[in-house]
């Protein structure tokens, strides 16, 4: 298969929180324009993988290349400026900031981010709530805000950690459409999901994690024939 070069290439990535060794050599890649999903049970290290890519763990080793450039020794602010942005699992909406301030918080790191009009076209609810306190929004609105604010920055690679967690089905659908729209606009997305049904509607490829390692990978086409295996991995 003639492949576009990887936008993100992760190689034998290890990570620690203090003394706890969490990632034991994670290897995978994400090509430009793809939506790739990390699947796995609770506690296998999906969030830690995203945080390690972003430089947000205590210690890491191995290799994380963005567009060929090694970032393993960079601090997380430098990684952000290289063009990666994260939407964390706990959403990270700031209580002491109103919605507008939350939205405008991440600085533009490179040209080509979405302007506010296009962001409000994706998330119409946010426009009416601009002067509310960030954490006064509903869970769904907070999730939209957490995604919206990283679209302005010009980062081309988005790390989304369980964006559907705890949300109502209509909201999940809206988030699914949004991710589709972002892909159409050329964003590359690395998604962590437990909601496998949801992931199946938007992802190009899947990696399965267990105990701090990637143990399997699948393309969307292989999904149907591997359902049984996946259910075993995920324990559903």
């Amino acid at each position: 298969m003639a492949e576009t070069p990887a936008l993100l290439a992760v190689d034998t990535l290890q990570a620690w929180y203090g003394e706890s060794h969490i990632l034991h050599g994670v290897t995978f890649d994400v090509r430009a324009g793809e939506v790739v999903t990390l699947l796995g049970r609770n506690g296998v290290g999906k969030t830690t993988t995203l945080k390690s890519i972003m430089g947000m763990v205590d210690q890491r080793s191995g290799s994380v290349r963005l567009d060929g450039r090694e970032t393993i020794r960079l601090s997380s602010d430098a990684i952000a400026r290289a063009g990666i942005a994260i939407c964390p699992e706990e959403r990270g909406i700031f209580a002491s900031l109103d919605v507008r301030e939350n939205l405008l918080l991440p600085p533009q790191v490179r040209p080509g981010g979405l302007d506010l009009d296009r962001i409000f076209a994706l998330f119409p609810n946010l426009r009416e709530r601009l002067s509310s306190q960030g954490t006064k929004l509903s869970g769904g609105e907070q999730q939209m805000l957490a995604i919206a604010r990283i679209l302005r920055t010009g980062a081309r690679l988005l790390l989304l950690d369980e964006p559907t967690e705890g949300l109502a089905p209509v909201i999940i659908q809206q988030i699914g459409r949004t991710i589709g729209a972002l892909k159409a606009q050329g964003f590359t997305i690395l998604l962590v999901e437990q909601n496998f049904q949801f992931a199946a509607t938007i992802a190009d490829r899947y990696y399965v994690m267990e105990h701090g390692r990637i143990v399997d990978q699948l393309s969307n086409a292989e999904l149907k024939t591997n359902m049984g295996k996946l259910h075993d991995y995920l324990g559903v």
Partner: protein
Amino acid sequence: MFEIFGIPSQALFGQLLIGLINGSFYALLSLGLAVIFGMLNIINFAHGAQYMMGAFAAYLLLQYLGLNYWVALIIVPVLIGATGIVVERLFLQYVRKLDHVYGLILTFGLALMIEGFFRNYFGSSGEPYQVPNLLLGGQNLGFMYLPTYRAWVIVFSAIVCFATWFAIERTRLGSYLRAATENPALVRAFGINVPRMVMLTYGFGVALAALAGVMAAPIYNVSPQMGSDIIIVVFAVVVIGGMGSILGAILTGFALGIIEGLTKVFFPEASNTVIFVIMAIVLLVRPAGLFGRTA
């Protein structure tokens, strides 16, 4: 001349004025402490010493370089703020990730060293500092006499406090600071250089203390222990207002200065303890302070 509750107006308003003056310094100093605590998680016990350094810097600049009050008002905060940045780089950046106790002990030790150093070179008697010419004299308002310099201190410190509040609560840069207070790791992962911001915040807090020191020089004697005299009260103010609340620090500072002044009129025996009594009551009723958020 007239009387209120049997107290001559001159005495009442005179004490009110002294209260407001003290309150101006309480507000400036507790504001700096609150800014530093919010961002660095450090209880800056060196704050009083840094205030004293500000006053001494103004005195020395005048004595040896002939630089007047107005020049000192600008360059002393920059100079002393820079020493704060050195302290942050050398020590605090490592200590602030540990338990509060470490930062407290480190800055307390620093305060003792600074104070000892100044006492060694300047003795403990104190040096006078002249009120700048422009602000000499005063106004008779009928019910009281208002020295111009004191009016200036009250107005200027209110302006500085308001400007700081505005910068933190209403500007883009302030939103970075507030966000980094909540979740520094995430703010950093958005591409903001949080360690540099922390360093500059400490420098700014120290600069505020030094500014207060310059303003205090013409009112109190410039002496090595002027910092430790005031800082105990300021810590009580911070406890009452609530650690980490900007507005709380400012309002509590002014309010307690006034309460202290009024106590001097109506119940002089209690004037030295009233703030600590209030602190004890607040701690019992609202342990997080009047403006504090419970964690």
